[in-house]
């Protein structure tokens, strides 16, 4: 690999390290520092070491001033993770066939498909979520349609529940799953699948034994792009879920808004970061072990 030998990895990584080092890692230090400070009276922080923010996540003072264990924030965290997981799964189920279809189009049509998949996202997310409200509400298109044809007698409750939130999340993140899968499938050596088919493996067998394993890098990349942002999302739960159940995104937003408790907001993000990073590293190690066995 002459090209890479001449320009060692660190040189290639230089622009990334410069930009991230200055404009991301430095602010990140600020966040970590905030999480160990005390909340300022008018928002912001006062420069004074404090662990209150971390204690607050698991323990709370009740109104009479007694400290006790409180699982409320833990619940919020678990709910967000669960919802993000469901969303990721749905995205894979809908995204993989779409990406497969795109990758098997004639080459000149493939970029067109990429554009087709992303163009709806030129419209603001808030506006698109609104449009879903128009579709799903009691007097919305779906219910009116079903009522008109007498399929149902009463409007179906499609809005302000878990179904609507799931639908909204799937809608917000689908392209972030489709495109990574597509880019790993696009170059697939279709002769492999043909060879498999020639060996009288069924289409489905070929899919599960050959295609999906080859598309794995794309599925993993897409899952990361969907799962992680979905944990912190709040628009879908606010607008389509009726704001009745808080997500991690809402909780953190609240600390930088009404609560004016920056250290708590920062601490919650630091913990979120730590947990997800740990999860990712464990998964990477596990993947390596599996690879090592094969």
């Amino acid at each position, binding site marked *: 690999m002459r090209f890479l030998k001449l320009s060692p990895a660190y040189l290639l990584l230089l622009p990334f390290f410069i930009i991230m080092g200055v404009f991301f890692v430095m602010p990140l230090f600020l966040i970590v520092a905030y999480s160990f400070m005390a*909340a300022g*009276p*008018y*928002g*912001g922080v006062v420069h004074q070491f404090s662990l209150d923010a971390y204690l607050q996540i698991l323990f*709370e003072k009740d*109104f*009479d*001033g007694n400290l006790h264990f409180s699982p*409320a*924030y833990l*619940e*919020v965290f678990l709910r967000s993770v669960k919802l993000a997981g469901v969303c990721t799964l749905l995205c894979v189920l809908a995204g993989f066939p779409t990406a497969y279809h795109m990758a098997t189009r004639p080459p*000149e049509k493939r*970029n*067109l498909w990429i*554009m087709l998949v992303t163009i709806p996202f030129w419209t603001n997310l*808030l506006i698109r979520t*609104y449009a879903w*409200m128009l579709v799903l*509400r*009691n*007097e919305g298109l779906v219910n009116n349609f079903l009522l008109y044809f007498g399929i149902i007698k009463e409007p179906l409750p499609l809005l*302000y529940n878990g179904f609507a939130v799931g639908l909204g999340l799937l809608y917000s993140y689908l392209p972030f799953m489709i495109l990574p899968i597509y880019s790993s499938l696009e170059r697939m050596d279709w002769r492999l699948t043909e060879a498999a088919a020639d060996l009288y493996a069924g289409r489905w067998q070929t899919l599960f034994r050959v295609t999906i394993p080859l598309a794995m890098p794309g599925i993993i990349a897409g899952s990361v792009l969907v799962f992680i942002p979905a944990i912190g999302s709040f628009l879908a739960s*606010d*607008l389509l879920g*009726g*704001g*009745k*159940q*808080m997500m991690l995104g*809402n*909780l953190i937003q*609240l*600390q*930088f*808004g*009404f*609560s*004016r*408790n920056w250290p708590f907001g920062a601490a919650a993000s630091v913990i979120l970061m730590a947990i997800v990073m740990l999860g990712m590293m464990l998964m990477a190690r596990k993947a390596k072990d599996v690879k090592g066995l094969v």
Partner: protein
Amino acid sequence: MKIKSFIIAALAIIFLCPTAAHAAGKKLYIYIWDTYTAPKLFKKFEKETGIKVVTDVYSSNDTLMAKLKAGGAYDVVAPSGNYVPFLVAEKLLQQLPDDLKAIAKDMTKSVQKPDYDPEYTYVLPLFYGTTGLAVNTKLTKETGASWQQFFERPAGEKPSVGVLDDIGTAMDIASLAVKKPFCDNTPETFKTLQALLLKQKPFVKVYGSTGYTERLAAGEIPLQMAWNGDAYKARQQNKDLKYVYPAEGVEVWVDNFAIPANAKNADAAKAFISFMLKPENAAEHSIAAGMMSSIKAANELLPEDMKQAPEFNIPEGTVTGVAQACPAEVVDAYSKIWSELTR
């Protein structure tokens, strides 16, 4: 489709876009509530003074404060009354000159000598409004006579009420319902408020403020805690709506003009504020924003339907509580109550 051609096309479109006109001369940077922009009126100011107005908007007082603290060089801002003490304490506002202060004598009684700045040292009231109850008379027989009724729903009812998710507002209204003062700092009050809200939750259709005007207009919500301006807007579309002032009273809030401490163009800012508070301009601003102007004479100049609108006329004898800046412990307790409510 090749990437290169894609880039060429992209560049072409960007350059074909009409570039916004950049007028020469002085610029005035205003940073106001997103609902308070009035492009036509700002143009009129430009014509009269030759000062170009550049408008930026925010959607929460916290954003405004964060940006001012970070040194954002704006010339005019419009903070809510309950945030003014914070901004003053952080030394983010500059003192107003006497000729601006003098405008205060033309203001309606409801906003005169506000307790957050009784001498108008830093701010001048711009708009004020109420938080009341919007009732859809077609969907419910209730009259919205009391907040207590709004919170304590009959057993077995389908989820049908809408609550604003602005926590300060929701807590003020809940305080009214249990007849406690705003920002009451006692454990008993916190427990009472929490119990009240938790009991109401099974009957709440939506906690939210984004899009509730549309929900009202579409006739989706029988009873909705609402800001007067939005209720008025929704009623233009849906005549079944009624804005009522429950017996326990309503919350009153005031937004104000102020000049930040590090304004680069304070003279233009002064000119702008006095321009905007002239009765005829204030009236126009009032119409554009759908809000009640602080200027008494401006309200005389409003179109008839606005003048008569129940949303803009607080009935004689209505109990009014002015939104305040709650102390930190109360904010903490309110956050806890809200987190528990939506956990």
